[in-house]
């Protein structure tokens, strides 16, 4: 079984490699976005030494790393599921001897690994040429960051599976998926570190899984979370991974019974 999933991950990795043009433009897009936020934050700081608990240097590191983390955990499997449902391909997928959702998650990992190696790493090197940016020096920080990033990937994938499975009930849900995408970007801290939000919003966000997707790993990387805090963060992320399994399992069971194949 694990051989099957390893193969799925490998194939997705190779498929990504075959569509290289998308990937070159992807690196440029990430740099465009990082650049935009770099300048925006420069203008926002305007000489102030600290905002929302972050110095301008920490903010620069935060912006760069939060986008690069996004490169790894981001995927479109919800849209792939939606397409499978719309085109009726899901019927074939369901009679195959594997779990459809795990297959999607494995493919997402293949995609994530591709983007990490060919996208985030060259991207961050490219960014560090243009904007002043420091990598963490201790091996421990790197280890904590990478672990946190992997957990973040799992949480984001679970959320994507949830919105993807909704297609079984709604038939078309591009709007919801689009809304989810921008909401995850905002509430996970890509556009704005969580510490910038007003107190009540931060309290509310503490009960939601989104900041586990980006804010936690990025704070570890930017050196704004020490070792104790980091351990706590990893534990929280692990907790969310288990909590999110419940709605997925429930919805998936319903979806299998409700499935209507619309055509080929």
């Amino acid at each position, binding site marked *: 079984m694990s051989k099957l999933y390893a193969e799925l991950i490998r194939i997705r990795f190779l498929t990504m490699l075959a569509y290289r043009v998308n990937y070159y433009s992807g690196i440029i897009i990430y740099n465009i976005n990082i650049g935009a936020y770099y300048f925006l934050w420069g203008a926002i700081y305007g000489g102030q030494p600290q905002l929302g608990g972050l110095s301008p240097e920490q903010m620069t590191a935060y912006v760069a790393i939060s986008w690069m983390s996004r490169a790894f955990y981001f995927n479109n499997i919800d849209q792939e599921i939606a397409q499978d449902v719309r085109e009726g391909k899901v019927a074939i997928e369901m009679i195959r001897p594997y779990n459809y959702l795990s297959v999607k998650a494995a493919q997402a990992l293949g995609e994530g690994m591709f983007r990490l190696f060919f996208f985030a790493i060259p991207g961050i090197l490219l960014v560090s040429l243009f904007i002043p940016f420091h990598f963490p020096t201790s091996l421990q920080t790197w280890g904590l960051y990478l672990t946190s990033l992997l957990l973040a990937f799992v949480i984001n994938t679970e959320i994507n599976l949830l919105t993807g499975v909704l297609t079984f009930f*709604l038939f078309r849900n591009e709007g919801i998926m*689009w*809304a989810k995408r921008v909401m995850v970007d905002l509430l996970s801290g890509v556009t704005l570190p969580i510490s910038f939000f007003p107190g009540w919003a931060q309290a509310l966000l503490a009960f939601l899984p989104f900041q586990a997707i980006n804010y936690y790993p990025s704070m570890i990387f930017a050196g704004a979370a020490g070792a104790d805090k980091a351990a706590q963060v990893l534990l929280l992320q692990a907790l969310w991974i288990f909590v999110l399994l419940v709605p997925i399992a429930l919805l998936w069971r319903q979806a299998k019974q409700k499935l209507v194949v619309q055509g080929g």
Partner: protein
Amino acid sequence: MVQIVRLFGEYLGQYFKTKLSYRANFLSELIGNLVFEFINMIFILVVFRHVATMKDWTRDEIIFIYGFFQVPYALFAMFFNFWDFNERYIIRGEMDRILTRPVNNLAQVCLESVAPDRIFSLLTGLLIMGYAAFQLKLSFAWYDLPVFLILVISSALIYAGVYTAIAAISFFSDSRTGIAPMIWNIQNYGRYPVNVYNKAIQILLTWILPFAFVGVYPAAYFLRRETWYFYTMLTPVMGIVFFCIGLTVWKMGVRKYSGAGS
């Protein structure tokens, strides 16, 4: 021209028929767009909790520019939708069908993807502008309305020119280029005043991909920022110039196009 307008009515009718058969999706797309705009607003609101100005712009001025930025884009997206042009018309060969028909080919491509539901993001843009104008206690003269219409149409023409030219690239190379998403991301720079960015990006946004002309430059007129008036007045010129460039590239592309088979 009359024929195109008549066809537009026909296509619009078809559009509503298909949309109404997927009512839930129509609603979810609407919600998706609203959430997107709401979230961009949250960024501005949260940031300005911590600072009073960004460069020399206040919160409400930034909000006004953001609101203005929505309007020409919505107008453009209502009539032009090149997002999947390459996939739909070149790779699947739909362009051959277009070319055998006795109506202008660009007009047909536009008609087939007309999106009147964009009116909602146009309205939210106006609403955001209205809110900011109220907060800023802006006063308007009667001639500001025609000026507004001219500026919005000019900005929409800039979009139309840029994206028509980019879609036309597909005629020369039938593989995916990934340029359009890149441009879309650069376009989002236009949401904020250009003097936030460094010199190179300012030049890019003014002369090469003139997305400063879809946001801050025209909006500066209503904010009575006289230092930018020169660029405000340049907006219609840029609109016409870029639209003509787009049309020229498109025509060249169609002449070059030889079909992808199948």
